[in-house]
């Protein structure tokens, strides 16, 4: 009976109830959109970082991780390569010689990381060739060709075919210099690579440092789900340290954590706004019905029932509006998730941080029931104060007022 009275009460002031229901729908919908949009940032960030910088898995000599010296190399290169060549999860891999050094033009010099790479493999793993904006990819210049980023080129004030000198320690610990010629200039989606990575052919770099060998494997897999299995496969054949991109770059975990916090904050803010609206509206509804509630109490309706009446009335609106908002949200994400959201208008700033300009909003299915509970919790909380107000009304005063 209370239930049907509550239901009827919702519709006595249609406009007001529709405002509450509409607010919940819009709130839920907006929340889903924001969460999904936020998720797409994370996904885009990971995707870029994997495709252009870290790959899925990296292997290093454990000593290299403590002291990144050239002689801390991967000693069982052959064994790992034969495993990688056979494994169907592996799209490509790149074995790199890495040394820290300086690059100098006639104008100035800066510190860089020098990568000696197998040019084909590197391009297949980090798409280096497609990121060239000037020059060619290791096929014109015979002697010590080098690729540098546009940013580094800018600082050094050099261009394609300019001569530069690189300086670094060789295997014996002696400082060595070599003159190289810039063959190409790239613009990587990875800010870190733009900042200070230059590429030489591995054969050239190894000749200059005086030893064969590599310091790093970067392995690209079909997808992130294969990381764990691949890691254990690799760990069983090598004593070197095998790490996923998340372990290599702790910023991923930090980002994930902060994204959880951000999404929770978003939820709290939106739900607080809803809460405010609900409390306000229901309070109005209660005060408007002062006399009626007084009458109900007079003729024998218990406080408990009056309380429930207001609680049910509010909850019903949440129950009605929640699923509609969720459905809108779901459909929006379904649509945007496949077409993508083009933010090219803002892409200059985004590119700086290694983002693509098209985002694909996405949300886990498990988020929907959580949001529904949050909405119900909000509606419920919003009803408590008005419901208390309703039972605090003195029935006598309520009916004395004509």
């Amino acid at each position, binding site marked *: *009976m209370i239930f049907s*009275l509550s239901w*009827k*009460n919702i*519709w*006595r002031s249609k406009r007001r109830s529709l405002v509450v229901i509409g607010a919940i729908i819009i709130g839920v919908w907006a929340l889903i959109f924001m969460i999904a949009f936020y998720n797409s940032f994370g996904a885009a960030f990971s995707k870029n970082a994997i495709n252009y910088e870290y790959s899925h898995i990296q292997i290093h000599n454990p000593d290299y991780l403590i002291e990144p010296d050239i002689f801390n190399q991967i000693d069982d290169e052959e064994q790992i390569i034969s495993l990688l060549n056979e494994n169907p999860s592996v799209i490509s891999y790149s074995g790199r010689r890495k040394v820290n050094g300086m690059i100098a033009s006639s104008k100035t010099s800066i510190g860089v990381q020098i990568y000696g790479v197998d040019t084909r493999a590197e391009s297949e793993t980090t798409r280096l060739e497609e990121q060239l904006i000037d020059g060619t990819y290791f096929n014109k210049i015979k002697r010590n060709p080098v690729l540098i980023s546009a940013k580094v080129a800018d600082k050094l004030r050099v261009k394609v075919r300019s001569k530069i000198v690189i300086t670094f320690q060789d295997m014996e610990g002696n400082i060595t210099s070599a003159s190289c010629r810039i063959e190409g200039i790239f613009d990587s989606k990875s800010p870190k690579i733009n900042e200070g990575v230059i590429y030489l052919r591995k054969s050239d770099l190894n000749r200059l440092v005086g030893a064969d060998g590599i310091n790093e494997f970067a392995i690209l897999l079909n997808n992130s789900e294969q990381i764990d299995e691949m890691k254990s496969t690799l760990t069983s054949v090598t004593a070197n340290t095998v790490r996923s991109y998340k372990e290599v770059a702790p910023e991923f975990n930090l980002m994930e954590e902060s994204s959880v916090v951000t999404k929770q904050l978003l939820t709290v803010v939106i739900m607080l706004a809803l809460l405010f609206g609900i409390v306000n509206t229901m309070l109005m509804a209660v005060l408007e019905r002062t*006399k*009626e509630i007084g*009458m*109900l*109490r*007079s*003729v*024998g*309706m*218990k*406080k408990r*029932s009056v309380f429930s009446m207001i609680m049910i009335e509010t909850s019903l609106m949440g129950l009605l509006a929640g699923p509609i908002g969720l459905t809108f949200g779901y459909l929006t994400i379904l649509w945007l998730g496949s077409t993508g959201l083009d933010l090219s208008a803002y892409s200059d700033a985004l590119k700086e941080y290694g983002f693509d300009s098209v985002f694909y909003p996405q949300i886990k299915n498990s988020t929907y029931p959580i949001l529904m509970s949050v909405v119900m919790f909000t509606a419920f909380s919003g009803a408590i104060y008005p419901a208390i107000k309703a039972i605090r009304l003195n*029935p*006598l005063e309520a*009916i*004395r007022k*004509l």
Partner: protein
Amino acid sequence: MNVIEATQLVKTYNPDTIPVHAVNNVSLDIKKGEFTAIVGPSGSGKTTLLNMIGGLDTPTEGKVIVDGVEIDNLNQSELTDFRMHNIGFVFQSYNLIPVMTARENIEFIMLLQKIDKNARESRSEELMEKMGISETSKRRPSELSGGQQQRVAVARALASKPKFILADEPTANLDSQSTNSLLDIMAKMNEEENVTFVFSTHDQRVIDKAKRVITIVDGKVESDETK
């Protein structure tokens, strides 16, 4: 048998500042089947007296016994229950539930009393028939005239089979024709169902229809006449 026994009732408002003795030492007994008017000018204490008898207000002094139960001894929730089972209320401004039809309003207290559907329906149909409001059964209060609304309110009070019905100026908002027919119906129900009615008024036509008239002035009983 006395349905209501009020003994030395006093109600004092603002006892600490400027005390108003709205009801000042009133004792009265109401027997089963009475049709009694509480009469007096505005501000004489009629509403205050009815509210205390109806268990809506607590007296400053004195006690009220309804059907053998001293209602001042009941706690709030017991009192609410007691009102539901024993006292019918008719208010000056009808006070129907606006979102319910006439019939649903009449059945409302029976619902609170957890009376089953069949009994509710036959009772509400019977009452609507007797009170000439059958045609209003599916209409909301806003679609009814004042006279019809007040008849629905009386039917609602009757439906719960109370020990007595309290009506505070039930005709104050009605024109003279509606006033007459409401009083006739109340008198008829008083005869047919032997329901006790206590109503307040300052309308001479209503006073004329009462079988007992208790006159109150300044919170005191001035006269008590049974015709």
